[in-house]
C-alpha cells in the first residue's frame, strides 16, 4: 500500500472513530486536486475550528440545502477558466433530505460534479434524529421507539436519474471506495456515491468498531456495494453475497448497535425479507 499524505489533518474535532474522517481521508487519497463543498452536518465540525482548518484543500462551507447548486456555480466558473479540479460535494444523509431537490436538479442538469453522501443514517450533528435513510426500527431521538418507515434508497433513486455514474461504498472497504472515486474522476458529468458510514455515538457502538460494523453490514447483505457506469455491477466485496446462503450475521450486525436495542426476531425476519428484495431488485438491473 502506498503511504501518502491525505487531505485530512490530525487533531481535528471529529469524534473518536468518526466515519466521515475515514471517508475524507480516502477522498484525499483518491483525488489529486479536489475542491470540497460541505453543507451543514458533522463534517462542518470535522472541517475544523477557525482559524485552523482540517482539510488541506479548498473547502467551502455552504448552507444545508445548497451544496450541489453552489458546486454547479463553481463548475461554471472553473469551466470558464479551463480549470480541471474535481468539484466534490461532501454531504450527509440529512443534507440529502432537505437538499434533495438540489441534488436532483444538479443531476438532471448533469453538472460536472461528484456528490458524495456520507450516510450515517441520521442527523448526527444535531444529536441523532431520524433522516430519510435511517434504518427501519432504529432508535433515534425523534424515533425513540424505533423508526416506523423504511429507509430511503438514495442510490437507487439517483440511478433513476440516469446520470453517468452512481455507486455505493462503505468506510469498511476503503480501497473499494478509492477505486470508485478513481473511476468516477475520469468520467464527466454528474457522479453520485452513497458511502455507508457507521457512527459510534449515533449508532451506539464502541469507537473501535466503525470499520467492523461497516463490514458486518456488507457481509449480512444489509449494505450492498455496487456501481453503475453505464451498466450496473456488484462490487467484489459484495459479490459473494448474491448467494443468499453466504450472507451472515444479520442478527449480530443489528445487536452490535445500541440503536437496535430491543429489536425482536420477527423484526429481524422482516429486515431479512427486505434485504432479499433489495438484492433481487439490483439483480434485475444487473441483467438489464
Amino acid at each position: 500500500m502506498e503511504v501518502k499524505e491525505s487531505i485530512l489533518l490530525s487533531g481535528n474535532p471529529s469524534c473518536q472513530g468518526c466515519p466521515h474522517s475515514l471517508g475524507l481521508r480516502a477522498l484525499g487519497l483518491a483525488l489529486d486536486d479536489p475542491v470540497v463543498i460541505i453543507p451543514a452536518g458533522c463534517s462542518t465540525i470535522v472541517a475544523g475550528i477557525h482559524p485552523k482548518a482540517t482539510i488541506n484543500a479548498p473547502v467551502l462551507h455552504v448552507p444545508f440545502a445548497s451544496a450541489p447548486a453552489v458546486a454547479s456555480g463553481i463548475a461554471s466558473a472553473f469551466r470558464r477558466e479551463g480549470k480541471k479540479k474535481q468539484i466534490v460535494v461532501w454531504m450527509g444523509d440529512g443534507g440529502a433530505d432537505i437538499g434533495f431537490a438540489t441534488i436532483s436538479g444538479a443531476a438532471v442538469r448533469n453538472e460536472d460534479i461528484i456528490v458524495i453522501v456520507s450516510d450515517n443514517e441520521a442527523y448526527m450533528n444535531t444529536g441523532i434524529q431520524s433522516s430519510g435513510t435511517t434504518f427501519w426500527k432504529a432508535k433515534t431521538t425523534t424515533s425513540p421507539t424505533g423508526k416506523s418507515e423504511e429507509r430511503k434508497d438514495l442510490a437507487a433513486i439517483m440511478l433513476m436519474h440516469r446520470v453517468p455514474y452512481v455507486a455505493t461504498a462503505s468506510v469498511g472497504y476503503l480501497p473499494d471506495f478509492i477505486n470508485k472515486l478513481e473511476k468516477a474522476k475520469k468520467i464527466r458529468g454528474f457522479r453520485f456515491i452513497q458511502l455507508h458510514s457507521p457512527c459510534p455515538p449515533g449508532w451506539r457502538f464502541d469507537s473501535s468498531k466503525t470499520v467492523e460494523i461497516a463490514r458486518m453490514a456488507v457481509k449480512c447483505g444489509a449494505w450492498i456495494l455496487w456501481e453503475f457506469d453505464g451498466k450496473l455491477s456488484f462490487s467484489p466485496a459484495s459479490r459473494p453475497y448474491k448467494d443468499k446462503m453466504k450472507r451472515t450475521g444479520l442478527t449480530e450486525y443489528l445487536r452490535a448497535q445500541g440503536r437496535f436495542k430491543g429489536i425482536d426476531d420477527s423484526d429481524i425476519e422482516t429486515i431479512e425479507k427486505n434485504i432479499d428484495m433489495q438484492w433481487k431488485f439490483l439483480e434485475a438491473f444487473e441483467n438489464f
Partner: protein
Amino acid sequence: MSVVEECLISKPSKGSAGKTGLWRTYKPVIKENVCNACMLCWLYCPEGAISKRGEKVEIDYEYCKGCGICSSVCAKKAIEMVLEA
C-alpha cells in the same frame, strides 16, 4: 490581512481542535515485532495519526484520539490498546 479574510478564511493546520491526544482513554501501542508494516492501520486510522518512518510504523500520540480502530483492523493483532495513565 483584511478583516474579512481574518474572520472567514481558515488555514489548514494540524490540531484545529487542540492536542486531541488528550482525549484518549486507551492508547494504541504497536508491537514492533509483530507488525509487518502492511499499513492497514494507516489506511483506516480516521485521524491520520499513523505514518511510516523508514520501515517503522509510528503513531502520533499528540493527536491520536485512541479510538482503537487501528487495533481492530490489524490482521496481525499487532496493536494493543492500553489504558492511559
